[in-house]
């Protein structure tokens, strides 16, 4: 532990963040920040490769995590206030668990954030088709629970068993109490921080949220966690507590939804950023293929480089993972640019020099109706499948479905992440039932293909010079 004194940080979003000398959670948080596992986050950019498009977006997971901790304190205050009104005693232990979970929630992110996650899953799947995807949340839990790790030691010294509680809170898919909502809900500390931080650091004019008004109007209510269409009255109703918003803040809720919509569509899913991510995934996939088939020498990366160690079969251990960060990944990519393998060298050198693939954006710009667009999509996919082995990375596909709540990564938005509005009689309604503005936002699929060769793209878009027919 550090010496008990008051520590202060200045943050571009929240201003002064203070860790009080007489607050044991603050003091533990400060010590956790100073662990090697947490310091690694200084070398992982919050927005991965968004700085290819938004040069200012070089902020780190380190700053974000501290901002999330600070925001989580405000949410704990919301719970305490709500419980006091209802005569409920707050659970101080669970409060502590949720605050520390907020601080540590991204400690398991790898280089380039989500791009690395997808590339690693592709490699795992190629090695074992039955392997389930491994998310950064799972890495986070493993780091927190690593016996002998600096994070685990501090937590265990503070209170035996608390590391397990924090890891469980961060990996739980379904909430069991309101403290889960601090790290995973429609108004969790993560998104309340990143919406403000990412907007500020990208320089985007879109996506302002009324943070203070949102916080002041949060209330704790029971919501139905069942799937969207589940209206079966024969089964006992399910209820779980979550943050809801009082109806007087409905315009702030609309602004919050629109902020996410704009940031996703203009920043996170920007076609150029997604192109760089797709190229990084292709680069790492090719790299792992070569490592797997004993052709390490053709990659240009020495065998002792942490990227080689990690991507070697059975090398994907926690200790090896913790050695990876953006800086190391870029050093490896720079070496791959000189690889003797032509495909790897081509991808890596393009990344280093920012010679990006050319986009075919099926969401907009094709000038076709939906049926013609679909035929184009099928034509491009067929061409990609027919590519010879030597050109299998020459057409890359990227598709993301976006709803008013953000990207739809599975069947539907998760129930506890719906935005529910509570009226004076404590009746709940989903926001799109109360707001014409939000209801007008339709699910949109961002489907793009990235081509090494612009002529091939143009030929597939307009075969025979016709308009896509």
């Amino acid at each position: 532990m550090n010496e008990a004194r008051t520590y202060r940080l200045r943050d571009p979003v929240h201003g002064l963040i203070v860790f009080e000398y007489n607050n044991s959670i603050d003091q533990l948080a400060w010590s956790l920040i100073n662990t090697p596992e947490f310091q690694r986050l200084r070398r992982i950019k919050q927005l991965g490769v968004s700085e290819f498009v938004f040069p200012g977006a070089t902020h780190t997971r380190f700053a974000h995590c501290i901002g999330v901790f600070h925001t989580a304190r405000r949410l704990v205050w919301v719970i305490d206030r709500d419980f006091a009104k209802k005569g409920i005693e707050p659970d101080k232990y669970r409060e502590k668990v949720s605050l520390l979970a907020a601080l540590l929630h991204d400690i398991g992110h790898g280089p380039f954030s989500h791009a690395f996650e997808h590339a690693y899953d592709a490699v795992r799947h190629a090695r074992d088709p039955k392997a389930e995807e491994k998310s950064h949340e799972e890495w986070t839990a493993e780091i927190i629970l690593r016996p002998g790790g600096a994070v685990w030691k501090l937590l265990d010294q503070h209170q035996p068993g608390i590391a397990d509680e924090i890891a469980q809170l961060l990996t739980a898919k379904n909430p069991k109490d309101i403290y889960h909502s601090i790290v995973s809900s429609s108004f969790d500390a993560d998104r309340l921080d990143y919406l403000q931080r990412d907007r500020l650091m990208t320089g985007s004019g879109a996506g302002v949220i009324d943070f203070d008004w949102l916080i002041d109007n949060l209330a704790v209510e029971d919501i139905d966690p069942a799937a969207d269409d589940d209206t079966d009255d024969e089964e006992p109703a399910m209820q779980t507590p979550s943050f809801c918003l009082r109806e007087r803040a409905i315009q702030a809720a609309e602004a919050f939804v629109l902020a996410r919509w704009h940031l996703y569509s203009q920043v996170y899913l920007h076609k150029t950023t997604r192109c760089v991510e797709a190229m990084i995934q292709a680069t790492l996939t090719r790299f792992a293929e070569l490592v797997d088939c004993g052709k390490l020498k053709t990659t240009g990366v020495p065998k002792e480089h942490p990227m080689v160690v990690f991507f070697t079969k059975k090398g994907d251990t926690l200790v090896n993972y913790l050695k990876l960060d953006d800086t190391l990944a870029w050093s490896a990519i720079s070496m791959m640019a000189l690889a003797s393998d032509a495909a790897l060298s081509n991808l890596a050198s393009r990344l280093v020099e920012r010679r990006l693939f050319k986009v075919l954006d099926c969401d907009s710009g094709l000038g076709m109706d939906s049926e013609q667009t679909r035929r184009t999509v099928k034509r491009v996919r067929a061409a990609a499948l027919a590519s010879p082995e030597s050109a299998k990375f020459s057409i890359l596909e990227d598709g993301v479905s976006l709803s008013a709540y953000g990207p739809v990564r599975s069947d539907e938005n998760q129930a506890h992440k719906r935005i529910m509005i509570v009226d004076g009689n404590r009746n709940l309604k989903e926001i799109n039932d109360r707001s014409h503005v939000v209801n007008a936002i339709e699910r949109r699929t961002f489907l793009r293909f990235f081509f090494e060769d612009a002529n091939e793209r143009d030929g597939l878009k307009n075969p025979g010079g016709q308009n896509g027919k």
Partner: protein
Amino acid sequence: MENEEELVGQVLSAAGGEIVGRVRIQKVFYLLEQLGLGSGFSYSYHHYGPYSADLMDAIDGAKAFNFVREETRRRQSDGVSFGVFKLGEADLDVPGELGELSAGDVKRYSELMNSQSSTVLEIAATIHWLQHEPGVEDWRSELIARKGQKTGGGRVGKAVELLRNLGL
């Protein structure tokens, strides 16, 4: 496969022309796939259990070709919106067999699945996934860990019975 958009419409037609809910349509297709539909869609595990991005893409395609249309409805209790998938206006040839299944099989299995809530379907598909994909031996404990309170209210028993009735 080449005609995945048509397949979505064909299954929907054989299933009675309507499937209610985005979670439900995923689980219906997943369980039919295990019974022999042969779509070739790949599945991975997500919040609501096995999910196929290929199927989602095929549904988008089926809507583009007007084999399928999606209506939005709202849950009465709290206004939560959900999608209802119906047959579109485009001509659709429904063959007697879909993969290893007859159209009659698809109808019968769909009726069995439609008699259950989508949470029970979610649990049934997850049990099957846990048993066959990661191959979890103690699937009950893992199910509770992943699904929490959804496993209460007799839903696991209903899900197990559904799987038995489907022959899975």
